[in-house]
């Protein structure tokens, strides 16, 4: 037992942060990148045109989608047409799924209704989804594992607040070039200055998983097997499904339904159209409005009979205060409601959270280096292991994500399984970086990986220019801020890694020999 409460909390903070730090770093990096998922999607599919969301002819768009679906998947069980709306939904999309489990989707050109051919890539969506699904692991494991990790993140934040003496006095304190003191100041600054965001993002992350990790709550009130279904029907009335009738009947015209939606919600207010069991007697058409303003992004829905076109049900955007409470948390976490300036602020806080974890991991090694001596060989091995994992993850993971983007430009377009291989490249490179970190002397390991990171990001716009025509020379004059912004951000990242490498190289007090003993580093 530790002697004081503060010492116990310090122990808990250190161990939860250390053991799970690298995974938390992965979640923060993919989460921050995932916040830009639609922009990354578009950069990774340069065949897509610049998105047009301002002047959308709803009826024409839906008809285009419908004719495409009729052509491609007439026997599907579910059709979905998403209209171009905003930054998060820039294109006209069709999606279908069959009873046999087959699915398919297309991006359609707004003018002609023809599908746009793009390279096979999972884009930014995959990075975003890795944030909670990780990769290569079964969902049944990752659901629980991620929740466990997030819970300890929450504990790490709270214990961090508890053990921070003088949290108010230290608020603006950052003393550079003072070794371990500077690392602690940096760790404190990153955490405390973005504390409201960190508390929100962690707690809301837990809320996402609540139905999975707290099933007993539902069972207690709704009973065992069917109770869970009943609960979800009550909370999400728009998800109620009707069985297929297995009697063919033609789908009603959709234009009158869209007109009804317009009379309820006004012009240009349709978000998507969903058709369940098209061509069947029990067909249902659900028309959903656009996402609401503010963190609660629920939209109202109109449910029509798919054969007669009769309006069966209207589900308002706000259903219950209980659900709204959850939706606020989820909306805050996803941050989709944010306008352009607030998005930058969200990104800033996300980056600060990532640096909070990185500085914490580095601080752990710096603190223990001076204590290394021959009597504690175990500690030396532990510090060495942590330091190498730090190099391979803190710098190695960004390199791997850079490699994901390089693969997107360099893998052959006609390659089978191309989308999966972009991800394989990312993880192979990460593994290589971890191996490099395991084998090189520590100071060289940091310098070399920082240089590689710098190169990977600085050269990416060049690779873009060599393999597509949507490079900075084209995107900047055209005002295509998705492409220009991406390339410019890669340059900024490259310069940041370069600056850090130069700073480390020039730091004369740290040499290769004293790197693992140096007290001031």
């Amino acid at each position, binding site marked *: 037992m530790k002697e004081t409460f503060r010492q116990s909390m310090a122990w808990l903070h250190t161990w939860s942060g250390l053991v799970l730090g690298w995974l938390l770093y992965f979640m923060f990096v993919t989460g921050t990148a995932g916040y830009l998922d639609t922009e990354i999607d578009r950069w990774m599919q340069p065949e897509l045109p610049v998105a047009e969301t301002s002047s959308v002819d709803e009826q024409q768009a839906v008809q285009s989608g419908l004719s495409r679906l009729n052509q491609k998947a007439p026997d599907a069980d579910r059709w979905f047409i998403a209209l171009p709306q905003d930054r998060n939904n820039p294109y006209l999309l069709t999606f279908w799924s069959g009873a046999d489990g087959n699915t398919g989707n297309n991006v359609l050109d707004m003018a002609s209704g023809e599908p746009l051919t793009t390279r096979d890539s999972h884009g930014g969506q995959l990075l975003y989804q890795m944030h909670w699904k990780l990769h290569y692991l079964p969902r049944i494991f990752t659901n629980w594992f991620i929740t466990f990790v997030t819970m300890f993140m929450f504990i790490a934040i709270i214990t961090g607040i508890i053990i921070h003496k003088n949290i108010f006095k230290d608020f603006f304190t950052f*003393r550079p070039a003072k070794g371990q003191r500077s690392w602690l100041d940096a760790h404190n600054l990153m955490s405390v200055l*973005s504390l*409201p*965001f960190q508390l929100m993002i962690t707690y809301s992350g837990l809320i996402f998983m609540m139905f999975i990790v707290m099933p007993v709550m539902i069972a207690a009130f709704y009973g065992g097997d069917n109770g869970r279904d009943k609960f979800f029907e009550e909370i999400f009335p728009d998800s109620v499904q009707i069985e297929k009738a297995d009697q063919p009947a033609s789908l009603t015209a959709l234009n009158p339904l869209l007109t009804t939606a317009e009379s309820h919600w006004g012009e240009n207010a349709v978000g998507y159209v969903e058709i369940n069991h098209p061509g069947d007697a029990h067909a249902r058409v659900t028309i959903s409005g656009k996402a609401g303003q503010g963190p609660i992004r629920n939209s109202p829905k109109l449910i029509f009979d798919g054969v007669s076109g009769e309006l069966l049900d209207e589900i308002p955007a706000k259903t219950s205060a209980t659900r709204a409470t959850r939706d606020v948390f989820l909306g805050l976490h996803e941050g989709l409601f944010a306008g352009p300036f607030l998005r930058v*602020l969200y990104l800033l806080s996300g980056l600060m959270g990532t640096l909070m974890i990185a500085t914490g991991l580095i601080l752990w090694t710096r603190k223990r280096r001076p204590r290394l001596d021959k009597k504690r060989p175990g500690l030396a091995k532990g510090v060495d292991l942590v330091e190498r994992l730090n190099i391979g993850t803190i710098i190695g993971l960004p390199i791997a994500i850079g490699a994901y983007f390089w693969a997107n430009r360099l893998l052959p377009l006609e390659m089978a399984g191309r989308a999966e291989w972009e991800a394989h490249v990312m993880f192979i490179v990460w593994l290589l970086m971890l191996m490099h970190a395991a084998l090189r002397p520590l100071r060289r390991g940091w310098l070399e990986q920082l240089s590689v990171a710098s190169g990977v990001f600085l050269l990416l716009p060049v690779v873009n220019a060599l393999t597509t025509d949507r490079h900075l020379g084209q995107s900047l004059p055209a005002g295509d801020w998705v492409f220009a912004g991406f390339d410019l951000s890669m340059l900024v990242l490259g310069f940041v890694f370069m600056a850090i490498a130069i700073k480390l190289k020039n730091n004369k007090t740290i040499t290769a020999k004293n790197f693992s003993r140096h007290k001031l580093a």
Partner: protein
Amino acid sequence: MILNLQIFLTTFIGMSILALSMRRHAQHLPSKISQRLNHRRLVSLAGWTALSMALYLCIAHHGISTGWVLWFGHLTAAALSVAFLLSYQAKLIMRLVIMAILALSMTYII
């Protein structure tokens, strides 16, 4: 866009004043000014007033939910700017606060 600039300037001024109300950070200032800051409570109050004004601007223009989120975001950015300024260019702080006040007034006049 102007609104975001106004909010950021207000939070920057607020955070700077709060920083300078602390003994630890006021030592960068010439002694005439740091003596005036001996009325620490008053100075802190001025700082918090500025931050509250920023909160009002956020909620008035963006509604309750988005307003609070925007305010916290600005606070983070402003506090980070002040912290880095204090570490690397402390002497600039007073000058920047005055420039911020001037810029803020101009956005209201124009």
